[in-house]
């Protein structure tokens, strides 16, 4: 009795897809999160003065403005010496500057009263940002930076 030949069917290869899908979705989530790694950063938004036109570069003299001068201390080019309105000296005490600014605000100055931050050219950027912070914390909104002119 002839035996029927059994046809052997080729083995079907089926790689396990579920772990592969898991890994691929992990990679997607990873790359989606990468652009957000600067999430701890923030921005101070200001507007630059218009430096074109006939008044470009001229100092704007406003005797009513609050002036925060950031000087370099003697023998320390990384530190700061804060001088408010040419007569109050705070050293590197930004808390004192804040208290003084809050005192000025409490006397009834409006929020848009001009505040000029006038750093020396060698003053470090972080002190300029901190002085800006103090003015914002004291609720002033019209804050300018002094820029040298020829």
């Amino acid at each position: 009795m002839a035996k029927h030949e059994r046809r052997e069917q080729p083995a079907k290869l089926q790689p396990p897809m579920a772990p592969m899908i898991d890994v691929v979705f992990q990679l997607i989530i990873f790359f989606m999160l990468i652009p957000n790694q600067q999430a701890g950063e923030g921005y101070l938004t200001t507007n630059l003065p218009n430096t074109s036109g006939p008044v470009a570069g001229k100092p704007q003299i406003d005797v009513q403005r609050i002036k925060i001068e950031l000087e370099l201390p003697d023998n320390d080019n990384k530190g700061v010496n804060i001088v408010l309105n040419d007569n109050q000296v705070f050293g590197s005490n930004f808390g004192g500057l804040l208290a003084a600014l809050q005192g000025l605000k409490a006397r009834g100055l409006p929020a848009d009263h001009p505040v000029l931050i006038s750093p020396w050219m060698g003053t470090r950027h972080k002190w300029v940002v901190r002085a800006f912070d103090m003015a914002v914390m004291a609720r002033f909104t019209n804050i300018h930076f002094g820029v040298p002119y020829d």
Partner: protein
Amino acid sequence: MARKKRRGVGTGAVSMNMTPMIDIVFQLIIFFILTSQFQQLEIEQVVLPMSIAAEPKDPFQYRNVIINVVKPDNPEVIVMGQRMDYRVIEGDNELSAYLKERKASTLEGGEKLNVILRADEMICYEVVASVMLAAGRAEIQGWWITTDIEEPEDLLD
């Protein structure tokens, strides 16, 4: 004669065709790899100053030029991976000429251009002022300063 029991249609395992799904997923991976690389090209590693008034924003919602100021001991201004001359001269320097060009091309699209400054915290104000002057020459008024966000009690220590 006993009938062979037919195997019903419902008893087989249901399998999805995974090949198109894998194709789409790999397309997405490649897309996210490329976009993250383009974003990081504009940004240099700096130690940012701390600020409590700073607000987290998504800068990529706007048309921006990111100006990196690095190396406090020998300051360099880097835009899109390229060093630029920022020194104040009579007329336009390399930075202000570049900003004017970017502003012109942005205006053609009817949009406004912002300058985002990423300066190391120990950079001297002289360099920052030079960059501000270059932006002013290009008549760009939107000016963002990048900082790390910090709590008020930490700043006043």
